Structures are given as structure tokens and as C-alpha cells.
């Protein structure tokens, strides 16, 4: 029994029972036994997940997520569901609020409204570090590496919560330190190998070329053993061949690590090429959700990117 089917039934059912619910409420009211009248609303059910993930709980569920900065509603009524191994895309014009959504998911900002369920766990009240341990990792729009440290050290820091070693062991070089450092080293090289960066292990992160820095950020994020990987404009500044390589890499990551990926991108070839589900954000609200095909043909999306068209133009 697919989740989708159940939810559709529910929303239909909700519509029909609403009337009877009101009647019931009225009856009770007349009898004077029930408290204030409750308004029932349908749970958002316009989500789609890949078929292969349909029997597993979604890795991410956002319900009515929103944040206000003073008077500005930067993100409003954000509803999204991501399947366990889905590659999802979040697109929209500049300033739409995409990175803000990432910041909400990783608790850099605290949501004003709404719920975030990460692997079924409500992340309310968690801070960034806690949420990372729950299984979400991210890269940043402006690369945030530990510039003065080496490539391998950057990855080892990503592995911080996967391989433990106490402060005292480190300070006095007890056996646990040496064992864990070996583990750190091996695991780091393993991860760097995925991106063919093992040879750069001893280079200072700040000295790497731009593309390598982006890749290192992804490696570091993967090191935290996440269930959901957030990539913020991973193809920024890349030429077409690098972008093609990146697309392969992202799919490979999903296949090898069996995780879900949510990416923000402006490069439509990449988005339409590898994303299975896409949400389009404009002025902080979702204006369209669906498969690449759905999005490409959606008039609202076209309007948002290209302005009002006289005839339905080709999607960009």
C-alpha cells in the first residue's frame, strides 16, 4: 500500500467528512459538551517520492516551515518530503530563500513556524551540532573550509563524531589515540579516493584550486555519515565538463552511500539531469513541485524565471 495512495484517500476523505464533522460539532455544541470549535485541515499530501523508497519512511519531512526576519517572511509554508535515496532539487530565482531553507534545516536559523522531521525525528530545539549528529550534512554557497589545515585534516574533522577519542588520550598519547588516528587516516583516504583526491591529502586546504575546494567540502560533509546531504550550488563556477563530472559524482554518491541528496542549483542542465523531485521557490514560497518534466512545463515557474510570457515559451 503506497503512502501516496493513503494520503490521497485521506485528503478526499477529509473533504467529505469535513461536512459531517461540522454537523457533529454543531450537535455537540447544542448539547454544550465540547469546548471551542476545532478546525481540521488536510495534511499536505502533494509530495512525491521515488518508487523504490516508497516502503521506507522519508528521510526529510518539512511541514509548514517558515521563518520571519522582523517583518519579512523569508520562507513561508514550506512543505517538502524527500525519499530515502532521492536526489531532490530546490531551485528558484536569486533571493527566493533557498539557502535560508538550508539554514533552517541545519538550524543555523531557528524556524518561526513549522516542523522539520529528520528521519522521523523532530528537530525542534536542536542546535546545528545536534542536528548534524542526527544525520544531516551540508556544503556552503561560499566555501567554508578549514583553510589553514590540510585536506586530510579537513576530512578527519568531518569524521569527528564517527571516530571517538578522548581529550586525555590525545594529550598524553595513550594507546586509544594511536588506534583512532590510524582509523582516521584510513577512513579519510577512503573518502578522498571517491573523489580522486587522495593524492592531495597533505595539501593545505586554502591553497587548493576552486573546484577541488568544492569537492573537499562535499567529502567533509560525507564524512559525517549523513542520511541527507545538502549541496548549496555545487556547480557554481564550473565549466560544462566539470559539471558533467559533478553530475556523475552526485549520482555515484547516492548509489554508493545510499543517502538522499537535496541540492540548490542554478544550472538547469544539472538539475533536470539528475534531480528526481524538484521544488521551485519564489519569494519564500513553493510555487511548484514535481518531476523535472512537471517543472519545465509549469507556467508559474517560467514566469518566475523569465517574466510573463505572451506565449508559453520554452522552459530554460
Amino acid at each position, binding site marked *: 500500500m503506497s503512502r501516496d495512495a493513503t494520503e490521497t484517500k485521506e485528503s478526499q476523505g477529509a473533504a467529505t467528512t469535513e461536512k459531517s464533522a461540522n454537523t457533529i460539532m454543531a450537535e455537540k455544541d447544542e448539547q454544550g459538551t465540547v469546548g471551542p470549535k476545532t478546525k481540521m485541515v488536510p495534511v499536505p499530501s502533494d509530495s512525491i517520492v521515488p518508487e523504490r523508497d516508497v516502503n521506507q519512511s522519508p528521510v526529510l519531512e518539512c511541514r509548514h516551515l517558515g521563518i520571519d526576519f522582523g517583518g519579512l517572511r523569508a520562507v513561508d509554508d514550506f512543505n517538502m518530503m524527500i525519499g530515502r535515496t532521492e536526489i531532490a532539487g530546490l531551485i528558484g530565482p536569486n533571493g527566493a530563500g533557498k*539557502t535560508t531553507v538550508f*539554514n533552517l534545516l541545519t538550524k*543555523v536559523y531557528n524556524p518561526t513556524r513549522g516542523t522539520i522531521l529528520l528521519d522521523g525525528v523532530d528537530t525542534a530545539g536542536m542546535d546545528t551540532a545536534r542536528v548534524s549528529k542526527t544525520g544531516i550534512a551540508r556544503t*556552503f554557497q561560499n566555501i567554508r573550509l578549514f583553510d589553514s589545515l590540510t585536506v586530510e585534516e579537513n576530512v578527519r574533522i568531518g569524521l569527528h563524531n564517527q571516530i571517538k577519542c578522548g581529550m586525555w588520550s590525545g594529550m598524553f598519547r595513550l594507546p586509544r589515540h594511536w588506534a583512532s588516528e590510524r582509523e582516521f587516516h584510513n577512513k579519510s583516504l577512503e573518502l578522498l579516493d571517491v573523489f580522486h583526491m587522495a593524492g592531495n591529502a597533505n595539501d593545505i586546504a586554502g591553497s587548493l584550486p576552486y573546484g577541488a575546494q568544492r569537492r573537499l567540502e562535499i567529502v567533509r560533509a560525507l564524512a559525517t555519515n549523513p542520511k541527507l546531504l545538502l549541496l548549496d550550488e555545487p556547480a557554481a563556477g564550473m565549466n560544462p565538463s566539470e559539471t558533467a563530472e559533478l553530475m556523475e559524482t552526485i549520482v555515484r554518491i547516492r548509489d554508493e552511500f545510499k543517502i538522499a541528496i537535496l541540492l540548490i542549483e542554478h544550472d538547469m542542465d544539472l538539475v533536470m539531469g539528475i534531480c528526481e523531485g524538484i521544488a521551485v521557490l519564489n519569494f519564500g514560497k513553493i510555487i511548484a513541485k514535481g518531476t523535472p518534466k512537471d517543472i519545465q512545463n509549469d507556467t508559474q515557474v517560467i514566469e518566475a524565471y523569465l517574466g510573463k510570457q505572451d506565449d508559453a515559451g520554452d522552459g530554460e
Partner: protein
Amino acid sequence: MGFLTNLINGISLGSVYAIIALGYTMVYGIAKMLNFAHGDVIMVGGYVCFFAMGSLGLPPLVAVLLAVIACTCLGIVVERLAYKPLREAPSLAVLITAIGVSYFLQNSALLLWGADPKAFASVVPFPSLTLFDGQLTISSVTIVTVLAAAAIMVVLTLFTTKTKMGKAMRACSEDKGAAQLMGINVNSTISMVFAIGSGLAAIAGVLLCSAYPTLVPTTGSMPGIKAFTAAVLGGIGSIPGAALGGVLLGVIEIFAKAYIGTQLADAIVFAVLIVVLLIRPAGLLGKEIREKV
């Protein structure tokens, strides 16, 4: 009447701290540096005024003016020689340089004027004000100090909000690069800030020495630290914050001295700062700056 006397003394001392703190906060807000040498400029102002009145026999007002001019020039010179080359350097480097300048000023004063304490003659040679049938005496220095602090604060606020130069300063404090692209001469703006700050320090110096008449090369050091604390207490970079912080600090210090004991007064003053910062991490009137992620 003890309470009232203490309150007035506190406000008076606090006003001195406020004037010094204003200089700190302006320089921090616009040049983004902690000018540790600020306290020692106070001391220089005190000495210049002392010698102007003593050796040159000039009337107090002229002596004060001379001190202000001297300190203003000193501030500009120090900025050009020691701080300008470090505009792009990490803030810690600038801090250390400021400390070097502070040591330089203290030791120059030591060599030039000796370590013996000078007896400073008050620049406000008016009689005290007696109220309530002689139960409450307010010295003229106190009145002038409080009025001066209030006037300075008003003038500074008007200056930064209404004048072109003031707007230039606020632009520089937001984004130096953008300000430059808009045609603002960042160099002269920053020099102006240091000039104003140092001029204020001179006024604070002569008022401080008029109230507490011993003058030694290290006179400016502790008030400098306390005024810096006051600026942070009020929210560094905020002009009303500096004034508020200064007055509060002065009042707390005097009350602590009066009711708890001179020995622990300093500890209490600093403890108050810590408590405030724990509750309001950006200071009383400071703004929380969100880092862009």
C-alpha cells in the same frame, strides 16, 4: 544626603568615563580597532594643560583649548604613523601596536615630565554649589563635567546623523570599500575620527585631573581600561551606549566604594560588566550582528 552625594559623584565620574568611552566607541565603530593608547592620550592632555597653566601661566580656558589641539594633533599623527599601515592587518596585530603606542606615550611622559606626581589646579576655579542649607555640596567641576558630557553626546549624535562628514563616518563603519567607491575619502574620515576621539580625550583628561588632582604618567591607564569596559557595557560602536555605559560604571564604582569598600570596588565594577554581557551579549544598547551563512 550621603546617598545623593554618592550619586552625584558617581554621575560626575561616570561623565568622565562617558567622554572617554565615546572616543573608544567612535574609533572602534569606524576604524574597527581597539585603541588601547586612548587612555594615555588623556594623560597627555592633562600634562599639556598643567604646563600651560603652570609654566606658561595661561588662563584655564586657553590651557584646555591648547590641550585639545595638542591631543588632536597627537591622535592624527599616531593614526597616520602607527595604525594606517595596518589597516588590512588582523585586528590582533593592530591591538598590539596600540599597546606599543600606549607604552611609548607613558614612557615619553615619564622621561619628559618625570615620575613625581603633579598637583593639578582645577580648570573650573568657581566656588561649589551649596544646596539644602549646606547639607549638599556640589563642586563646580562636577557640574561642568556632567554638562560637558551631555553636550558632547548631543553634539556627537547630531554630527554623525546630520552632517556630511558624520554620514561619511557611518558609511565607513558599515563598509569601507563601498564608501570609497562612493567617493568618500576613507583616509581623511578615519583621521577625523581619531582627531575627534583624541580631542575628547583631552577634555576628559583635564576634567579628570580637576576632580582628582594627582597627575602621573600612568594616570590615564586605569580610567582608560574602565572607560573601555564602559563602552563595551553600553554596546561598542553605539554612541548613546558609550554615554550610558560610562555613567552607569561611574555610579556603580562610587556606590561600591561607599557601601562595600574601596578594596573590592574594582572587582565589583568588572563583575557587573560580566553579568550584563551574559544577559545581553552585545552590550546594553549594542546590535547583534548576524553573520551571513
